[in-house]
């Protein structure tokens, strides 16, 4: 059984979803890569920000 940490599961999820988003939502390879990176950073960045938000609310 594969038991990743929450953060590594997030990274894997963001990577796979970003690849699909990048390829399907843009037309040229350069724009695909840029959009894929943008999605990946948004996935990871928003998760980190929300996590800190929940941590501070819970204190």
């Amino acid at each position: 059984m594969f038991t990743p940490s929450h953060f590594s599961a997030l990274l894997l999820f963001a990577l796979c979803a970003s690849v699909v988003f990048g390829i399907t939502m843009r037309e040229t390879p350069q724009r695909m890569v840029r959009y894929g990176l943008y999605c990946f950073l948004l996935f990871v960045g928003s998760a980190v920000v929300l996590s800190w938000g929940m941590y501070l609310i819970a204190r």
Partner: protein
Amino acid sequence: MAATPNSSSATAKAAQPEGFVYLPLIVGWLVPGAGHFLVRKWGRGLLLALAILTMFVLGVAMQGKVYSSAHDILDMLGLIGDLGSGALYVVTRVLGLGADSVQVTTGDYGTRFIVVAGLLNVIAAVDAHNLRTGRKPS
């Protein structure tokens, strides 16, 4: 100016894709990335297949739940997401892989991975269809 309607209809007829335009959509749904292979987008098809397969396999490896029936609205949405994986879902059900219910923490992540892999596969299949019809130029 009688030639204008004829030439425009000839141009429109030439622009129409020949054959069964839904084939990449159906094949892409059944096998991740195969719709793009049909429209000769080899690199994109390979990357899509890798991303979707990886997500699905990781979900199963995390003991994610594979929905088999729908008792409430959330189960129904999960089942629809799982069905998006096409043949992967059928193979998983036939082989009895995945979990019937979430029993470990990572199983909850795995359930989401499996559902989202199906949804991403639907997006990829629709993209292949758009490439086939010319709605997406390249």
